[in-house]
C-alpha cells in the first residue's frame, strides 16, 4: 500500500478535533512555511540575546525589524531596492534581447554554431565577478559597470540550451509539418521555432533572472552609491550590522518575488503546456 500522506492525514482528522487544527491542515501550504519562519526567528532571537555577542556584531531579529522600519521610514530601503531592480532589469533585458536571437540563430546555422560555440563555452565559466576590474576600467563609475556585469552574467545562460534544441529531433519533425503546409522562413520562425522553444526559454529566463539577482549585489559594491549591495557595503563601513541584515533580507524577499513572477510566466498560457 503506497498511499499519499494526505490520505492518512484525512484519516486522522475527525470531528472531535479543534477547528483551528483543521483550518491549519487546510491551509498547510501557508501555515507550514510560517511555522519554520517563526522557529527560525525564535532561535535567532534567543541566540542574539543569550550568546553574549554584542548586538553590534549579532543583532537580534527584533532589532533588525526595528532598523528596517527606520530604513523604510526614511525611504532609503525603497530607493536602494528600486536602484537594484532597475540595474537587474536593464542588464537582464539587454542580455535577453541579444542572447535569444543568437541562440536561435546558432541552433539553425550549424556552421556558426561550430564556430561560436567554443568561444561561448570558454567565456561561460568565467565568473562575472572576475570581470569587475575590467568593467570599472572600461565603464567608469555609475550604473554602467554594474549593468555590464549583470549583462554578462545573464547572457550565457540565456543563449545556451535552446540553441541546441533548434536541431533536436522533435523540432525537425515539426519542420516537416511546416514544409508540408508550405510555411515560409518567417512563418517557420514565428509559428514553429519560437513556440517550440518557448517553454525552455522561459525556464532558462527564470534561471537567468536568479543569477542576475545574485550578481547585482556584488556589482553594486563597486563604484555606485545606491542599490542593496551598496546599502550592505556602506552599512558595514558604518559598523551597522542591523542594516546589513536588512539589506540581506530585502535581497531574499525580492528574490522570492522575482522567481515567483518568472515561474508564473511559464504557466501563463495553455499553449506553453507540452504533452510530453
Amino acid at each position, binding site marked *: 500500500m503506497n498511499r499519499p500522506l494526505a490520505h492518512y492525514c484525512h484519516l486522522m482528522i475527525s470531528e472531535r478535533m479543534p477547528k483551528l487544527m483543521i483550518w491549519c491542515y487546510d491551509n498547510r501550504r501557508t501555515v507550514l512555511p510560517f511555522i519554520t519562519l517563526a522557529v527560525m526567528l525564535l532561535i535567532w532571537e534567543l541566540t542574539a540575546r543569550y550568546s553574549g555577542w554584542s548586538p553590534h556584531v549579532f543583532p537580534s531579529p527584533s532589532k533588525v525589524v526595528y532598523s528596517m522600519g527606520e530604513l523604510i521610514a526614511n525611504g532609503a530601503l525603497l530607493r536602494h531596492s528600486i536602484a537594484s531592480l532597475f540595474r537587474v532589469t536593464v542588464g537582464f533585458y539587454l542580455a535577453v534581447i541579444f542572447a535569444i536571437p543568437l541562440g536561435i540563430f546558432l541552433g539553425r546555422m550549424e556552421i556558426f554554431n561550430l564556430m561560436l560555440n567554443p568561444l561561448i563555452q570558454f567565456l561561460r565559466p568565467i565568473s562575472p565577478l572576475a570581470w569587475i576590474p575590467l568593467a570599472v576600467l572600461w565603464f567608469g563609475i555609475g550604473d554602467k559597470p554594474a549593468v555590464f556585469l549583470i549583462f554578462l552574467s545573464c547572457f550565457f545562460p540565456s543563449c545556451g540550451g535552446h540553441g541546441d534544441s533548434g536541431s533536436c529531433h522533435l523540432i525537425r519533425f515539426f519542420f516537416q509539418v511546416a514544409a508540408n503546409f*508550405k510555411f515560409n522562413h518567417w512563418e517557420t520562425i514565428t509559428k514553429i521555432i519560437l*513556440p517550440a522553444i518557448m517553454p525552455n526559454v522561459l525556464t532558462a529566463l527564470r534561471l537567468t533572472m536568479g543569477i542576475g539577482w545574485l550578481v547585482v549585489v556584488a556589482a553594486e559594491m563597486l563604484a555606485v552609491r545606491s542599490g542593496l549591495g551598496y546599502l550592505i557595503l556602506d552599512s558595514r563601513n558604518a559598523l551597522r550590522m542591523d542594516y546589513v541584515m536588512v539589506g540581506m533580507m530585502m535581497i531574499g524577499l525580492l528574490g522570492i518575488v522575482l522567481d515567483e513572477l518568472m515561474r508564473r510566466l511559464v504557466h501563463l498560457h495553455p*499553449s506553453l503546456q*507540452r*504533452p510530453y
Partner: protein
Amino acid sequence: MGHILIQDVCKSYKNRRLERRGPHDLYQPNEMMHVLDHISLEFLEGEMVCLLGPSGCGKSTLLRIIAGFDTPASGEVTIDGEKVRGPSPHHIFVFQHSGLLPWMTVWQNVELGVRNVGDVRARGEIIQENIDMVDLTGFEQHYPYQLSGGMQRRAELARALAANPDVLIMDEPFNGLDFLSHMKIREEIVNMHELLRKTTLVVTHDIDDALLMGDRVVVMSGRPAQVTLNRQLDFPHPRDPKKNTVLGDARDELFLMLGVSYAI
C-alpha cells in the same frame, strides 16, 4: 487527380556511426544499407492503397519519398505526371506519431490546412466542416495535450483533409490506439474515402486493416524491400473476411506471405 507512379525507386542509407542493433550485428561505418530495392508501383486515382510489410523494411521510407520529405537514390515518383520535388500541400503526410503542433488549438491546427484560402469566412467554414466531420465539434479551442490519443489522430486527419490534398499519406494511423478507437477511426477513414475518393496510402501492420480498407494491397519483403504482392481488392464496403470466402482466402494468403502459417 492523385495518380501516382513510382518508377524503379531505390534508397539506401549510409550507416555513418558504428551501431549495435543486436548482440551480434555491429554495423560497419560507412556501410550502405539498402532499404528500397527497385520499387515500381502504380496507384490509380482515388484508390485506397494499403502497404504491408515486416517492421523496418522501408514502408515509412517509401511514404516519405512519395511525400517529398526524402529523395530516392535512383528512380522517381510522379504524381499526376509531375515529378515530386519536395513536400507540398497537394500530398499531405499524416505522421506515425501525432503531428499536431502542441502550441496550437485544434482550430489553429486545422487552419494550417486552409492557408491558401483567401476569404476568412470561407476558411472558417472549411475548418468547421472538417472538425465536424471527424466528430470533434466542441473541441475547437482545445490544445492537443487536452485530447485523447484517438482524438489527436482525428484532429490530424481533419487538418489533412482541410488542405484538400490530391493524395493523403498515412503512416500507421492506428498506431498506439486502443482497440475501439482503432475500429472507429478505421471506419471513419473508410467512410471519408468513400465520400471524397482521394488517393489514400495507408501503412499498417494489421492484415485485417488492409483487407477491410484497401482497394489495393501491396506487400513488401524484408530489407532490401521489394514488392512481393500487388493485388487489387474489388469488394464493396463494409467487408467481412469471415463471410466473404474470396476475401478469407486472400487473408490466409497474406498471412502465409508474411511468414505466419496459422492465423486465427
